[in-house]
């Protein structure tokens, strides 16, 4: 689909987060987070549960609206209005356009149950992007083949195993030709024997040079797939770097503790 591009610090920022804060009631989940994801980069967000990594991911496409700070996609700031707890999306047209280029994969798949797998994959390209049906169907079938469930195109999600459903959800994300893929713990709801088939697909996409941000519990996978790993602790970035730096030459005591727990968990 896309040419493999070398990751250089000079390439375009696809996602840029500036000083994000997010609270739920009195609980401050994000306490000021900034980072940049560049074209072709694969970034893993790790951290214990409650560290804010899922919330952070969901702020990128405004499923959660940050109380403070900005999100920029391809250099374009998402328009927000109001302050703090009253902050909300400021431009419906803009957010729909931006969301239509962000491919989100959820922990619980969230395929639309009343549509077949093929209809799920074709829905956003047809309804949101308003592309040509024949072209979309051809691409959707190609994406389903790519994730290895081409024969399940006419099945309903409920007729598929968890691993197949998640691969269908990945095909749905791919079919919108996303600028960036967002994975929210894509294997956490799967039985261990089904995890591998999903991880293989994600690895394949990473190797194609797609820009991806993924939240994961799987340290081995984060290590093998990422260009950069970000460790979140209590709403702040505690440590970040290449997988070798983060896993091989861990500086933060908290990260050491977390990695030990993860290895023995």
């Amino acid at each position, binding site marked *: 689909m896309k040419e493999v591009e070398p990751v250089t610090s000079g390439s375009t920022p696809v996602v840029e987060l500036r000083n994000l804060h997010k609270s739920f009631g009195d609980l401050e989940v994000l306490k000021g987070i900034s980072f940049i994801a560049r074209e072709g980069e694969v970034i893993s967000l790790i951290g214990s549960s409650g560290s804010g990594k899922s919330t952070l991911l969901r702020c990128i496409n405004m499923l959660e609206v940050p109380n403070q700070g900005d999100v920029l996609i391809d250099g374009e700031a998402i328009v927000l209005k109001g302050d703090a707890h009253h902050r909300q999306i400021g431009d419906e047209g803009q957010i*729909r356009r931006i*969301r239509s280029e*962000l491919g*989100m994969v*959820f922990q*619980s798949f969230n395929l*639309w*149950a*009343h549509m077949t797998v093929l209809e799920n994959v074709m829905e*956003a390209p047809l309804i949101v992007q308003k592309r040509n049906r024949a072209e979309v169907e051809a691409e959707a079938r190609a994406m389903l083949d790519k994730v290895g469930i081409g024969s399940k195109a006419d099945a309903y999600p409920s007729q598929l195993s968890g691993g197949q459903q998640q691969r269908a959800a990945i095909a749905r994300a791919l079919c919108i030709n996303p600028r960036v893929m967002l994975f929210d713990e894509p294997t956490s709801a799967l039985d261990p024997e089904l995890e591998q088939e999903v991880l293989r697909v994600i690895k394949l996409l990473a190797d194609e040079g797609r820009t991806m941000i993924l939240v994961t519990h799987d340290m081995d996978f984060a290590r093998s797939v990422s260009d950069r790993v970000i460790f979140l602790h209590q709403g702040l970035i505690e440590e970040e770097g290449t997988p070798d730096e983060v896993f091989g030459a861990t500086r933060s005591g908290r990260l050491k503790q977390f990695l030990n727990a993860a290895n023995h968990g």
Partner: protein
Amino acid sequence: MFDDIAFWVSYLTNGKHLTWYASFQFTIIAALLGGALAVIFGLTGATLKNSRFWPLRMIGTVYSAIVRGVPDVLFFLFFPLAFEQGVEWFVASQVCTPEMIAAQSAPWPPCKEANWFLGTPEYLILASVSLGLVYGAFATNVIHGAMRSVPAGQLEAARAYGMSESQVLWRVHIRQMWVYALPGLSNVWMLIIKATSLLSLLQIADIVLWADRLGAPNFLPTVGLVHDDWRWRYYLVLFVFYILVTWLSERAFDAITRRVGRGILSEAHG
């Protein structure tokens, strides 16, 4: 034997019987129109109850709470009369001159020109709207509950892929809501069918009224007593009709449930 058959054929095809047969259309029209309106009012009520703005939320809640509690017979009498007089009051305020009012001897309407004569078609529409309003309040509750049963993650996914709120509502939320609403709506539909037997309250010569008239002891000066009290036979025909409608409705609801439940209900039939 032949005489018997000839009697029954001519008896059952006499003018009054033909009118009776034709009056089944009022019952069917009232049920279908009332049912359709109940679903529309139910969707509207449920949307109001889900609204972000509290005055709209209040309207939806008050509607479903109050109207459900009012006996349907009472509402059936109240609504068409109130509507008719409301229209007459409005027309009177526009057209009546002091001279017209002075010329009017009856207490209502204020002047003859404002009188609104309602025939069977008008009463049928008012009856259907009454049914729609009363049972729409039940449908509001059913649909409101069903909307909350749709998995939130699927709505979130629809938003995450850039769908507008109305696309999320119609393409995912309402589309999936039917599966959860249909069992409740089928109950509401049965109640509507039962309530169609009240049409004669609105001066509609419906199947119940005709069964009553035709079944009463029938005496013709030229022939003598044709039959004595046969009402129970006519009521029996109505029983059979309502049972038939019930059976057809169940079949229809089963078919609709299978259709909208594809992929959502258990996949025993593939």
